[in-house]
């Protein structure tokens, strides 16, 4: 008979009726019944199903789970397009300062001058870094920023022309959220095919750009890791027909301190503080996706906006052309604060160096792996590089196998099967956080896998073998997901 391993049990399965994790002193006031004081409809009749644990049992459960985790604090996390850079601990110290951590979101302006000063200063910095001085810090993440930006484009066109136009042009290498955001704003999406170099084709764009088109939504550098070097011409083509240029700022990490989207024709974009500006990302979040735009967008900013007056900073709600509020309170303030701390810590020189090292690291990985793996766009890339499984297919090995084997060798896998226009894509973004020694360990692991694909493909098919669980049945998990634990009958 096998005993179920208690280490794999859910907290509900570890629960024992009557067990307690607390010990309270006797009441020093007479108990007051809730009945009568609280409306019946708001009273919960019982707390059935809550796990009952001792304190030490609870601590061990969650500490054990945390040791199975993999994060940027454990090792390199080269998840392309996600910019999993290190989250400096000094930012955490700043975010925990009592004056910030305990300020009430509804505090009157005069009692929250410190928090408002951080928001005002960060807006100024983001405006300077992007060349787009009109800023809203409200959006909660990247896709939310896209939606906010597209709503502002729509409002601006309605105000200018009386109608919002019909179409939005999006390159085929775009993040899936781009067409979704445009669609949610009532636009039809038309896809633009990339050229053989992996870039936006200006001639294809010129053909598609009609007076029906509200704008172009693009990512620069794009998701193939390539800088859109004809962006100025592309922007001119869009502007000449009265359209606007939206930039997805997911890949801004390659450009900060080096090139300003406002200078190459972008009208409005979002930034991901949880990518480019080092705030925690993926489980540790929440995210933050500020929108930055040209001065023409000022009237349409979400309310409220932090403005400087003779009597100090205040939140301005009186903006009749605003698209309205897009987030409760003031955005994810803790992230705004961490991003501010990051920019201040790096300074102008550090910001530039972070972009340079991010690009250098990605090119180093490409140069060292280009013989072992196919590089579909083998030229100087920006902050990320795309490989494919083309060479390994010969031995029956796919991108998924390579990714799973990387786990055995101590690395988080890169982004796989994205962008969709590359067959079997492996998208590697080392970020500037990694030094040469860690990059070399990653490269050696990838070279070892390429060799194993040739000599022992079965090993890759079985990977990972060093983890507590090997391959999951991802198809069944997606088809028949079990989203809630239910108590076994009997």
């Amino acid at each position, binding site marked *: 008979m096998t005993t179920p391993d208690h280490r794999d049990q859910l907290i509900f399965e570890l629960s024992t009726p009557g067990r307690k994790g607390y010990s309270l002193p006797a009441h020093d006031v007479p108990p007051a019944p809730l009945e009568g004081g609280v409306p019946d409809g708001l009273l919960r009749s019982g707390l059935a199903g809550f796990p009952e644990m001792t304190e030490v049992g609870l601590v061990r459960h969650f500490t054990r789970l945390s040791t199975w985790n993999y994060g940027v604090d454990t090792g390199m996390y080269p998840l392309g397009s996600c910019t999993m850079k290190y989250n400096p601990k000094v930012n955490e110290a700043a975010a925990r300062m009592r004056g910030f951590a305990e300020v009430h979101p509804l505090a009157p302006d005069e009692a929250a001058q410190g928090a408002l000063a951080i928001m005002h200063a960060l807006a100024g910095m983001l405006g300077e870094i992007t060349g787009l001085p009109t800023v809203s810090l409200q959006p909660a993440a990247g896709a939310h920023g896209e939606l906010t930006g597209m709503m502002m484009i729509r409002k601006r066109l309605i105000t200018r022309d009386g109608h919002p136009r019909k179409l939005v042009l999006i390159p085929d290498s775009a993040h*899936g959220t781009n067409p979704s955001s445009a669609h949610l704003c009532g636009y039809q999406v038309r896809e633009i095919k990339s050229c053989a170099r992996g870039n936006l084709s200006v001639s294809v764009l010129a053909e598609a750009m009609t007076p029906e088109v509200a704008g172009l939504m693009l990512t620069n550098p794009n998701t193939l890791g390539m800088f859109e070097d004809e962006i100025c011409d592309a922007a001119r083509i869009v502007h000449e027909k009265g359209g606007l240029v939206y930039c997805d700022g997911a890949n801004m990490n390659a450009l900060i301190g080096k090139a300003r989207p406002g200078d190459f024709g972008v009208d409005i974009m979002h930034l991901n503080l949880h990518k480019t500006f080092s705030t925690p990302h993926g489980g540790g979040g929440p995210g933050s996706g500020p929108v930055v735009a040209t001065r023409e967008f000022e009237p349409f900013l979400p309310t409220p906006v932090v403005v400087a007056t003779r009597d100090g900073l205040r939140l301005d709600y009186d903006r009749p052309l605003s698209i309205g509020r897009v987030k409760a309170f003031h955005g994810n303030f803790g992230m705004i604060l961490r991003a501010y701390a990051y920019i201040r810590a790096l300074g102008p020189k550090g910001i530039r160096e972070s972009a340079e090292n991010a690009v250098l690291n990605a090119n180093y990985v490409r140069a060292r792996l280009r013989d072992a793996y196919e590089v579909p766009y083998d030229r100087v890339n920006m902050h990320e590089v795309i490989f494919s499984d083309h060479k390994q297919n010969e031995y029956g090995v796919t991108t998924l196998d390579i990714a799973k084997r990387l786990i055995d060798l101590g690395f988080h896998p890169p982004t*796989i*099967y*994205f962008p*969709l226009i590359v*067959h079997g894509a492996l998208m590697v973004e080392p970020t500037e956080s990694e030094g040469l020694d860690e990059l070399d360990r990653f490269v050696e692991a990838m070279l070892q896998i390429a060799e194993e694909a040739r000599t022992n493909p079965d090993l890759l098919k079985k990977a990972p073998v060093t983890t507590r669980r090997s391959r999951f049945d*991802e*198809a069944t998990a*997606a*088809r028949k997901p079990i989203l809630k634990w239910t108590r076994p009958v009997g």
Partner: protein
Amino acid sequence: MYPQTYKYTNDHEWIDLATGRMGVTDYAQKQLGDIVFLELPEVGKTVKKGEQMGSVESVKAVSEIFAPVSGTIAEVNAGLAEKPESINLDAHGSWMVAITPADPAEAQELLDAAQYAELTK
């Protein structure tokens, strides 16, 4: 490999012009991997050739289903939406919707089995 009685699109859909039933090809199924979810148009919806009319989600990605011809959705295979894994087992037998074509001339632009096989080489 590809049934001779079907016609094919560059976007990897097949259509049986005798019944109007369409699905995705075996090549598409292999590229997508394990299919987990289908989103199909409703009966009565008019679709335009080449425009998105639904989506197919696999463990790898969500991909669009394009209308192989213009017309009206006459039938939807609700059973397939409940068992999308059938597409991985038999893509050419797993019809998604039936379309009543609006313009028979459009069918001339579709690929035959040999042309499609050439495309996927």
